[in-house]
């Protein structure tokens, strides 16, 4: 059999559906890929409209080779996530250009479904899901269109059938989603760029890093508290700890894993963190973290490090002590490291610190003096500071005097080290926003912060936040209150309009549920759901049984719905009653012949089964009177229905 050719109508639908699916990739892929694909698609439509021959294979082969080479030259690989998607889009457009038959079209549609999934590699938000649902609908309608053999039935019909079929697929999809056995972690190594492009704190800190991060209103993590929510100014979410200064840049350096010794001084705070993927190992917790989540460890400076980079949304239970004493008997090697400064950098600062040391032999007095300087002299807290030179701290302290938290922390740490007080920088997040609808705290990238810890003999490591000295508002009310109004900040962070705030809380609450239940549906969640339906031991065997039973039940429920329109419907109640009477007799082996009238049938029945004669003739008389007589009454109809109901052959 020769495959039927695809009509222009279907070609246009197919091209449009694929274009809609590929569209979100436009912002991630180089422009030439999209332009090439669009050109090829438009060429295909033009050839179809003008009824011209499609290009021959050798020409297409040349384009394939050229496109592959271009992708390789651009990405230096043809594997990987971005290169793979770029190649897939170009190949789809080329395949479109040689699509003649319905069979080719179906293959393209299958690849279209595959292209939808590649979009989820980049974005799995509610909006992306809704958009892709629309795409699935359209491409399924296209698939139906390609299977029509007659002249077009109109797009409405196609869309209606596709919508109905997809709606009827939803229950089964839900069951499969809930009960299909889930495994944690990838099956094989992912391409290196699989999780590129997520923002977050890193293992180094240069002036401007955190300020840049503050421009993003992306969610870093969400926290549900089991106990009372602490005050905003006490919420320091501990992340990477920086020890080593090189030029203007602080680095985490080597981790050390001495057993951290701490002593909680207040009742622990208990909470659950849902961390967005940031492709780094740090798990964030309130200072001071009092336990270690599963599949993570704690370094000697209280960094929580997951065993693998956090590539998927991760939920963990935590316990923290807001008041604690820790590191009083710190390793001397670590203290030595916390005093090191790069030689011949920031000479004015070092000199200034030595002067302070001579004035204040007491560590605490020295610290107070420095903080007072930040508070009382003309230091400014701003997101867009002037550029700093090679000796960044010198430039800041003695010239520009305006900057963001990282430069305050950096300057303070350099001053402390130069004065002989061990100091290090802690980065993380400060504060958070309470969502009254969801009852949880949202911590955004805009809440990123840097502060310092100094080591005092007999007390151990003590947190000192120089930003609090220069801008107490930052710590109490968040970044929007602290920076000048002219500084660029995400719209949401300002919180100027109450209704906008309300809308935003609703949306975030929705997004949180989406994250917890759709995107965060992992083996742990599945076990929890299964335990709710009474399956404590979630073996593959048990899941298979649940899946089969649930699928069977759903299909049983759906079948009558799908097949109900097959039988002819009898609208006339009189006829319906009579047909019921006939089928009762038919089941007893006395069916009505196709050409037999009611009276002839009754006569034959009376002859064959004389004992039925009175009832048969009564029903037939009623039927004939109602159907052929003038103006049947409702009472007569009820009578007929009743007689038929009571009749048995």
């Amino acid at each position, binding site marked *: 059999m020769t495959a039927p050719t695809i009509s222009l109508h279907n070609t246009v639908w197919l091209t449009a559906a694929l274009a809609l699916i590929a569209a979100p990739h436009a912002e991630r892929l180089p422009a030439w890929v999209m332009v090439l694909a669009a050109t090829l698609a438009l060429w295909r439509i033009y050839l179809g409209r003008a009824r011209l021959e499609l290009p021959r294979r050798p020409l297409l082969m040349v384009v394939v080779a050229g496109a592959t080479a271009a992708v390789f030259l651009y990405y230096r690989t043809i594997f990987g996530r971005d290169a793979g998607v770029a190649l897939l889009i170009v190949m789809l457009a080329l395949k479109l250009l040689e699509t003649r038959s319905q069979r080719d079209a179906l293959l393209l549609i299958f690849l279209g479904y595959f292209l939808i999934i590649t979009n989820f590699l980049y974005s799995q938000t509610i909006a992306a899901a809704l958009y892709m649902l629309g795409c699935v609908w359209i491409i399924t309608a296209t698939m139906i269109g390609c299977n029509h053999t007659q002249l077009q039935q109109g797009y409405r019909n196609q869309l209606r059938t596709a919508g109905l*079929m997809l709606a009827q697929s939803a229950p089964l999809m839900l069951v*499969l*989603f809930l009960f299909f056995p889930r495994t944690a972690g990838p099956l094989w190594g992912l391409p290196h760029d699989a999780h590129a492009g997520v923002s977050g704190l890193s293992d180094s800190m240069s002036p401007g890093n955190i300020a840049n991060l503050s421009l993003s209103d992306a969610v870093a993590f969400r926290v549900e508290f089991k106990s009372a929510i602490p005050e905003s100014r006490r919420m320091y979410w501990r992340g990477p700890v920086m020890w080593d200064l090189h030029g203007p840049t602080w680095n985490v350096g080597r981790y050390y894993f001495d057993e951290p010794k701490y002593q909680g001084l207040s009742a622990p705070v208990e909470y659950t963190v849902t961390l967005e993927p940031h492709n780094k190992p740090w798990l964030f917790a309130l200072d001071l973290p009092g336990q270690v989540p599963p599949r993570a460890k704690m370094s000697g400076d209280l960094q929580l490090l997951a065993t693998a980079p956090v590539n998927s949304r991760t939920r963990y239970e935590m316990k923290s002590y807001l008041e604690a004493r820790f590191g009083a008997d710190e390793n001397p090697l670590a203290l030595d490291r916390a005093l090191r400064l790069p030689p011949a950098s920031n000479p004015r600062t070092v000199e200034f610190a030595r002067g302070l040391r001579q004035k204040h032999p007491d560590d605490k007095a020295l610290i107070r003096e420095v903080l007072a300087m930040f508070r009382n002299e003309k230091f400014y807290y701003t997101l867009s500071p002037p550029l700093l030179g090679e000796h960044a701290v010198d430039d800041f302290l003695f010239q520009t005097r305006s900057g963001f938290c990282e430069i305050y922390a950096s300057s303070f740490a350099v001053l402390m080290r130069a004065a002989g007080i061990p100091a290090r920088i802690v980065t993380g997040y400060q504060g958070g926003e309470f969502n009254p609808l969801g009852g949880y705290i949202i911590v955004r990238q805009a809440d990123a912060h840097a502060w310092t810890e100094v080591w005092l003999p007999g007390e151990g490591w003590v947190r000192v936040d120089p930003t609090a000295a220069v801008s107490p508002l930052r710590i109490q009310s968040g970044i929007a209150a602290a920076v000048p109004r002219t500084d660029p900040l995400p719209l949401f962070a300002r919180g100027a309009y109450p209704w906008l705030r309300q809308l935003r809380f609703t949306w975030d609450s929705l997004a949180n549920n989406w994250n917890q239940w759709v995107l965060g549906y992992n083996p742990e969640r599945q076990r929890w759901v299964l335990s709710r339906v009474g399956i404590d031991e979630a073996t593959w065997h048990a899941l298979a049984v649940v899946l089969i039973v649930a699928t069977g039940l759903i299909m049983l429920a759906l079948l009558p719905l799908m097949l109900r329109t097959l039988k002819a*419907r009898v609208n006339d109640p009189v006829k319906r009653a009579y047909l019921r009477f006939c089928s009762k007799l038919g089941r007893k082996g006395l069916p009505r012949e196709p050409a037999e009238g009611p009276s002839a049938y009754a006569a034959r029945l009376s002859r064959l089964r004389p004992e039925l004669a009175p009832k048969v003739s009564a029903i037939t008389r009623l039927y004939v009177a109602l159907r052929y007589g003038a103006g049947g009454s409702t009472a007569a109809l009820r009578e007929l229905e009743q007689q038929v109901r009571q009749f048995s052959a």
Partner: protein
Amino acid sequence: MSSKKDRSPEGAQRIPGISPPDFISFHPGYVRLPLTAFQNTYAALKDYFYNWLFQLRGPQAGPIVLVQRRIFILPTRQGFVFAGVLALMLIGSINYGLSLGFVLTFLLVALSINAMVYTFRNLANLRISAARTRPVFVGEKAQFAVCIDNPGQADRFAIGLMRDKEESTFVDIPSRRAVFAGIAIPAVRRGLMRPGRLTLFTRFPLGLYYAWSYLELDAHCLVYPRPAPAGLPLPPAEPGAGTGMQHGQGREDFAGLRPYHAGDSPRHIAWKAAARGQGLLTKQFSGRADTELWLDWRHLPAQMDIEDKLSRLTRGVLDAHARGITFGLRIPGRTVALAGGEAQRDRCLEALALFGSEST
């Protein structure tokens, strides 16, 4: 099981798989190849299995209702490709931990399961009956028309009808309508031709499944022998039957006009009358004694092949009818008395078509 077999009226004619159209008349030279006992048993078992599986009970009188037991369904090649794509999508979703990838994959899995019901539904509960077919000559195509009635509320789309996986025709059947689907089968042998097993099939709506039903309709088409090339002289008249008849000279007397019937020679249509708007009329000529013609088997050369003789006689019947003369036909075992007109032509052609089949 055996009771089922007994119930079927024409158990001997059930042939599974691909089969040439059933002919009631077989050629005398038709010999079945000898088979070994094993092959015989295997073939019989296979027949039995196919007949049981596909409910083949020979041609059935009356309409066929496509109940669930009559409809079969299997994935198409595209269906298997789609399953492969879904497997890839599932593996991708697991590997990258894409929750929405799972959602999409499972939605499509559910969709493809539903598609099976939809494809079945597209065929279910249709009522199929055979329509009358017009006789054809060998070498022409027999047009078998099948009436497909959709009594339900749902429209049916892209329903195909085919024989032997050759060409197929597609129809759409709106709800509560009946639609005719025609299938053309080349007539290769004279006699009564049955359409054999027809397949009614559909891939709608997604093309992932192929649902089909075998139709063994009680339809047949009369196939006349292939007429010999025109221009050959008619066989000479039987001595004594006429008075030295002559033909082919156009000397018949015009006798009057009668309404046109299908099959009348265009040469006899009264075109002038038609031009006057009187409709199509056929000129009739008075049958003189010398225009009576016996087409007789015995007058053909004895060494001539049987089929060739039948072809010559067929040509004779057509020519005689075209001239509007009175003619009769004598073949072994059958004599058609002298008469004229269309009915006579059809009677003679039928006798020629069925020659030899009465004895088998």
